[in-house]
């Protein structure tokens, strides 16, 4: 009953590949069925987070360059802070409300993904946290309005330094610092390169 070992290996290989091919087919089918829904959910989540900042806005437009690519997409500002993308918010009568900057900053437990509105008069409109993995009960308070409200209407010329003009979350200085610095540095970058955002096509 002993089989030739080479034959045995080929046989086992064929069996395993059959299983993998079937599994792969099943996965690609599920993927193609769920993909539109997944994209819709992601779009909805982004739009909701933008709506939470400019409730009056009815349309959002991604800032793109001549090649139709998003401006400052995954733009690193330093080793901890980056900009994901920038949108413009418009109200129902097409008036420009402000820029929406989506970015991330390295906190205590990982990147803190935030989004904030930048008014044309160079103040912060408001900030909201999209995703974070800070310590529950301590750093996680970063997503609470009790902390975020202090950025509302804050002039971007302020220094955004914890314990000076930013009241930190109790016992979570690293988290508070990460967000304040994230906002300050990304906002300075955006203001410096603001001409590139208004590339009318």
């Amino acid at each position, binding site marked *: 009953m002993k089989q030739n070992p080479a034959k045995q290996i080929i046989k086992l290989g064929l069996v395993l590949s059959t299983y993998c091919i079937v599994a792969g087919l099943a996965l690609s089918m599920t993927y193609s069925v769920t993909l539109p829904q997944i994209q819709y959910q992601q779009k909805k989540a982004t739009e909701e987070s933008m709506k939470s900042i400019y409730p009056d806005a009815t349309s959002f437009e991604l800032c793109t360059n001549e090649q139709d690519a998003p401006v400052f997409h995954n733009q690193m500002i330093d080793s901890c802070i980056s900009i994901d993308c920038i949108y413009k918010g418009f109200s129902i009568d097409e008036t420009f409300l402000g820029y929406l900057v989506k970015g991330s900053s390295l906190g205590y437990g990982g990147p803190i993904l935030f989004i904030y509105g930048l008014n044309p008069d160079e103040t912060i409109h408001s900030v909201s946290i999209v995703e974070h*993995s800070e310590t529950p009960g301590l750093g996680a308070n970063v997503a609470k309005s009790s902390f975020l409200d202090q950025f509302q209407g804050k002039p971007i010329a302020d220094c955004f330094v914890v314990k000076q003009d930013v009241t930190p979350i109790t016992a979570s200085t690293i988290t508070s610092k990460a967000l304040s610095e994230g906002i300050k540095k990304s906002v300075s970058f955006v203001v410096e390169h603001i001409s590139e955002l208004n590339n009318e096509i």
Partner: protein
Amino acid sequence: MKSNFKNLLTKGLIKENPVFVLMLGLCSVLAVSVSVVNALGMTLAFTFVTILSEITISILRKWIPKSLRIPIFIVVIASFVTILQFLLQAYLPSLNKALGIFIPLIVVNCIIIGRIESFASKKPVFESILDGLGISLGYGIAIVCIAIVREILGNGTILGFPILGSSYEPALMFILPPGAFLVIGIEIGIMNHITKKASRKGVAR
């Protein structure tokens, strides 16, 4: 035969509870039991993968060469986990966000591969479904029991509703990792105490 089926369904609850007695899959239990909602979501995800994998392996058990069984088990489990992840992203994005990395980690949950190796790869489909259901229920009960204690003590809420009043200062430790170890240890202790008492009574009779 009927009592055999019932036994399959109930043995996972107490006698062979995967978490409290077999001490398997503790990583996800400790991490996800921060809130009752997360615990329930994790239980659903776990049940989905366990039952579908057990059914698949049980149907295919005659076409699985012995030397290839572990890779094939992993392929099947990993496929169902990935399918689950697509479905969650598409239809329950908030749950997907809450459970995060612990969805993909179901692949390496030793409870599932253990049940497949010791049960589904040898038994017919119907019994495998019952086994999967029983084990998932046992897992769910364990993780929810831990989550209830942790959420009440650590956050003063249950399912997000405040129950201890605003004067209660939450003991943060319970929603941090040390609290998970404390609660699981105490609950295992209570469970051992009860089962020992019960078995002593059984002997006395």
